[in-house]
């Protein structure tokens, strides 16, 4: 394939569809991380929670037909999703308990959870299926796609709204987009959202007006567990229908970078996740050229690093601008 075809494929609806698909798990995890970060309890266990939930979803949905034989078939994947979410909540609760109740350092506790999830999933997978690499011996179901009706005959729009094969986007992609809107409203329009931001910025100030700092941080961490779990489930029950050892492959950490890149707000976070998704998709396109694959694999992390540098430069400029505004105000006063 020539370079021109790669270019052509980038400026196509199919490319946008692929970006959305790649970005979905990162958007979900990053929104969760954002809530915890804004509450002042940054959750770096996103990676482990994604992994744990991805595993629980596959296992439970694969065995659900044996456990609940009477239920209709469409229910089984959703039982898996429920199991994944519960796993996410348990792991996030562990982190919250260690940090908020026992006073453990949140970074160290989260590292522990990441290691626990990485080892624990492989251990359980081997114990149950006898395979250390993946659950390919199990038949696990997928969460369905949603196809928007009537648009498939319209050339560009059809691909845009229902992805390249016109088979629609996964439910998780829609969940990610809806969550972005809901979290934005929550953070900026609802009292609890304001309390969450206040707790993160100045916990003493929040406590002095009667806000229960610990409780708010519990909520934030548990919510981050749910969202990261959805991100993980998207990998094993949407993107693929299989669990592989370490299948998150650093997406939980990318999600953390994306939060700062997105200037610690939901819309920015989503845009940053899409930029990362675009870099990944581009890498996939370039894979068809004779570029060494190692270089291509470097693109997404390189884009992230460059973007973080730009973000920090911008932030410094912003601090200077704020300082200047402050000076001007003071001069006026």
């Amino acid at each position: 394939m020539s370079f021109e075809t790669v270019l052509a494929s980038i400026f196509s609806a199919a490319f946008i569809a692929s970006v959305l698909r790649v970005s979905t798990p990162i958007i979900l995890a990053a929104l969760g991380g954002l809530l915890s970060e804004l509450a002042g309890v940054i959750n770096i266990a996103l990676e482990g929670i994604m992994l744990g939930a991805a595993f629980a979803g596959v296992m439970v949905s694969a065995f659900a037909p044996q456990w609940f034989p009477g239920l209709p078939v469409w229910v089984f994947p959703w039982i898996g999703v429920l199991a994944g979410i519960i796993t996410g909540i348990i792991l996030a609760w562990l982190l919250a308990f260690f940090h908020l109740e026992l006073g453990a350092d949140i970074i160290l506790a989260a590292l522990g959870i990441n290691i626990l999830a990485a080892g624990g999933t492989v251990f359980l997978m081997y114990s149950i299926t006898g395979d250390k690499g993946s659950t390919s011996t199990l038949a696990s179901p997928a969460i369905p796609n949603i196809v928007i009706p009537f648009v498939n005959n319209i050339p560009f729009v059809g691909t845009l709204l229902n992805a390249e094969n016109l088979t629609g986007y996964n439910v998780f992609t829609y969940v990610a987009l809806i969550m972005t809107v809901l979290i934005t409203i929550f953070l900026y329009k609802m009292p609890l959202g304001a309390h969450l931001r206040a707790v993160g910025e100045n916990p003493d100030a929040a406590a002095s007006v009667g806000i229960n700092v610990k409780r708010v941080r519990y909520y934030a961490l548990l919510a981050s567990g749910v969202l990261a779990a959805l991100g993980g489930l998207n990998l094993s029950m949407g993107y693929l229908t299989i669990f592989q050892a370490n299948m998150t492959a650093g997406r939980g950490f990318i999600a953390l970078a994306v939060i700062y890149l997105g200037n610690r707000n939901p819309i920015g976070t989503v845009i940053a996740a899409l930029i990362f998704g675009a870099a990944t998709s581009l890498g996939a396109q370039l894979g068809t050229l004779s570029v060494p694959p190692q270089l291509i694999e470097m693109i997404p992390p390189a884009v992230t690093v460059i973007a973080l540098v730009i973000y920090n430069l911008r932030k410094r400029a912003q601090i200077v601008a704020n300082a200047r505004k402050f000076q001007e105000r003071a001069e006026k006063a």
Partner: protein
Amino acid sequence: MRDITKIYPNGVVANDDVNFSVERGEIRALVGENGAGKSTLMKILYGLESFTSGAIYLDGQRVDISSPHKAIDLGIGMVHQNFMLVPSFTIAQNVVLGSEPRKGSFMDADAAIRITESLAKEYGLEVEATARIDATPVGMRQRVEILKTLYRGADLLILDEPTAVLTPQETDDLFEAVRRLVNQGKTVIFITHKLVEVKEISDTVTVMRHGKVTGNVATKDVSEVDIARMMVGRDVFLQVDKAPQQRGKAKARVEHLGYISETGRPMLRDVSFNVYEGEILGIAGVEGNGQTELVEVMSGLKPATTGEIYVGDRQVARKNARQVRRAGVGHIPEDRLTNGVALEATIAENLVVDRYYRPPIAHASIMSPRVIRSQSEALMAEFDIRAAGYDAPMDSLSGGNMQKVVLAREFSADPALLIAAQPTRGVDIGASEFIHNQLLAKRDDGKAILLVSADLSEVMNLSDRIAVMYKGKITGVFQNSPDLTEEELGFYMLGIKEQTPEEMAQNM
């Protein structure tokens, strides 16, 4: 508050059988040295601390105040010394935080602004409801704190050292606002250690010392000296006796100094002055106007962006701290715990940290424990440092004794230029008296001293000349004389007045 006793888990008795009462509609000053227990008492009243025994009564009813929430419900509000505000929120958002007006399950932003503006108008506390806190001057932030307590229905306001960060003009505004509050039926407890303010604002005074109440008097019946005596337990000389000045030649010359912070903000702009031998030059100004940076640049902790500093004939701008010290500069840092001492190290180690590498302590890179011990013990005796021994850990000392360790090190290095930044911050009246006398002794000995202090009365009591800083610039230089008033300096501290270069040159 009746028979309140508070014993901390480590055995420290912070309040010992304290009786404290305040009448509706009065302004009661609560004074005492650091560690006298006044903050603890107020934290108990506001539900931030529990007490060991005793009882609290409000309007004759015994009440249980186990959390700030309960205190708020009972109409008690507290304005903390360090502001409890969320920087990225607007003023209105800060005022209503925790009990936001709602429209369904959403916050009602318009109502928050309306409420803030109407409260501000009612009590004459002018604020800009839609401005963000981090773009708001300190004086306004304090008004926001007061509005917060009023929004929560406070009838009894506790103000914890509210004037510490204010200029004289802002202090006047605050006092006016406090009087207005009282006229509208509120009651105010005013914690302070500035005796002038006690006389000016309060109706009655409660004095505390060592966890006990040592006096409850009507303000008009006592003088400042009386109050000071109750605070310290002995006679205190509020005015220092200053010998006539013997001014020598310029020891330190600062020329066109500029410093731009890491965030790109200009913190020092074209600062020039001399410090002469046998002189205390005081730097006055509201905190955050470049004084901290000036001291850090002059002591070698930060590199000057532009300009030169000479000590004697040595150029020390952009030299490191050791080089600057070797040029004869001593530095009493404003943040004792970060830059003044190493908390985990021993007293002896802290005393010799500027000289451990050279004779008489070290020969050929080997330190002599014997010399360290004898030097340390001599300094501890000379500066009256009370501790278990020269090898006791630093963090076992009280704030006043820690400051004495810093003083002992800096004074014994016999610097030609001594930079003293907030030398009496957080130390009690007795210790500040000692520090002031030591500074004056150095001056009389012909040393050059640069005194930076947020406490205007300290600057005015000690200095021979006073330079005022505002936004990183020197806005005025004055010969200290009885005619120079705090109000006049206040105009320069606020940037309302600025001397012309010619006027400034007269006092250079």
